[in-house]
């Protein structure tokens, strides 16, 4: 196909257009949205994005796949220079918030009671914080007595953690997790040191 010079030229033009779109959008654009705006199809979009990525290989910028779409971003190696220009960004998530959002991400939609059963502590404050930071959102109510609110994670959650899809989260095979847990308990004290450090912060 790419032997045809006009097709190659078209792909290059499409890459240029997509470059512009990603630049101005400032938020992830799905292949579908890109195809619609450029009046092509998703296959052509994927080809063009690959072309774009190759071209950006030497650049300070990159095209990342994030929160169900493509987005232009700076490369991590230039982070310190960029951080210098920009005002300090929002605080990182606290350990309680991290734990809570993790539980919700894997069990969504889930209730406050479920979160609290796993964490063993009251979690209403954390849920409020996560909602305010748009990491989680109320997703209806469970049809059980008391009709408790169900929570699920947002696209902003995906974006915040640089995930493309929920399926990018590490797979939670029960047995595997048990194995990991044993490993964590017996072999990896260092990891726990990190955890304690995080908790002490």
């Amino acid at each position, binding site marked *: 196909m790419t032997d045809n010079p006009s097709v190659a030229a078209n792909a290059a033009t499409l890459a240029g257009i997509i470059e512009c779109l990603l*630049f*101005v*959008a*400032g*938020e992830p654009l799905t292949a579908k949205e890109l195809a619609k705006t450029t009046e092509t199809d998703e296959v052509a979009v994927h080809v063009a994005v690959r072309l774009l990525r190759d071209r950006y290989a030497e650049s300070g910028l*990159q095209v*990342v796949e994030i929160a169900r779409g493509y*987005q*232009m*971003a*700076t*490369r*991590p190696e230039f*982070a310190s220079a*960029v*951080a210098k220009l*920009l005002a300090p*960004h929002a605080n*990182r*998530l606290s*350990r*309680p918030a*991290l*734990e809570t*959002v*993790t*539980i919700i991400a*894997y069990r969504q939609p889930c209730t406050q009671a479920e979160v609290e059963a*796993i*964490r*063993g*502590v*009251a979690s209403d404050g954390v849920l409020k914080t996560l909602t305010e930071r748009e990491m989680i959102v109320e997703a209806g109510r469970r049809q059980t007595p008391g009709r408790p609110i169900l929570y699920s994670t947002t696209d902003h959650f995906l974006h*915040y*953690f*640089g*995930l493309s899809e929920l399926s990018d*989260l*590490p797979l*939670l095979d029960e047995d595997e*997790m*048990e194995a*990991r*847990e*044993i490993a*964590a*308990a*017996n*072999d990896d*004290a*260092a*990891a*726990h*040191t*990190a*955890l*304690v450090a*995080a*908790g*002490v912060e």
Partner: protein
Amino acid sequence: MPPAAVPDAATALPSSVPPGKKRSSSEPFAALPPLRLHAFEGPLDLLLHLVRAGRMDIFDLPIATLCDQYIAHLDALGSVDLSVAGEFLVMAATLLEIKSRLLLPVPPRDDADPDQDGSSLDLTDPRAELVQRLLEYGKYQAIAEGLKLREADRKNVFFRDPMDARLASGFALPPKFGELSADDLLRTLERMLASVGAGEKAITSVRRQKITLRMKMREVAFHARQAGQDGVSLSVLVPNAPFALIEVVLLFLALLELLKSGSVLVAQKAFCGDIRIFFVPEFERAMVAEGEIESGTEGIEEAEAED
């Protein structure tokens, strides 16, 4: 493999103590540095810490040791703040209950089941539920740790704001000497209403009032004209307490109407400073016909009447 670095509390944990050795909680580990409970997310977090630090086998939990260590940590706190430690105390009770049940005779094992070899969980074990909870919580803690790394990675990547959002908000200017936006007036009204302590309910009586918008407009224009070049302060126009809410609302509407028609200008020299209203003489006004002001006013009054 020896641990690279051990958390402070763990260093003092007597891992040489054989599991199950009786230890009175009234003689806590002397060398134990006080554990700060707030460093732990909750009782499960503390338990997981003890299990890991003590290198305990989670599938054959030495419950007596764990229970003693746990209670020792609570004791080390001295006076316990119930609001903080309530959950920790509940867990202590649970541990004690499990410990006591373990003292009871164990029913004979079903040897036909080859899986019951200690590496997997016996659900008849009194420890089973606790172990399940620890496993589950530990599992999410491990993933949360992974997400934390992702968060750090992601923080090194920067995006740009959407184009339109930038145009809308990127160049906000501080208030200047000159005409204010309707929003500023609205905010002023809100401030005034707040200081009066009025709720929305009181505003429902609009139609009953004898004061009309046109009356208020005339009043404001009159005062502004009297004041001349220096303009009149808004605080002068605000009715003195006690007053009907409608008067404040009408003052606000009158100002908006007069501004719209170009009859007055509103200015504020400093942020949150005094707001002055200047009368604009006819010849300086925009080409807004006098009739337009009248008809506009009447329109509003008609709308009120129809309500």
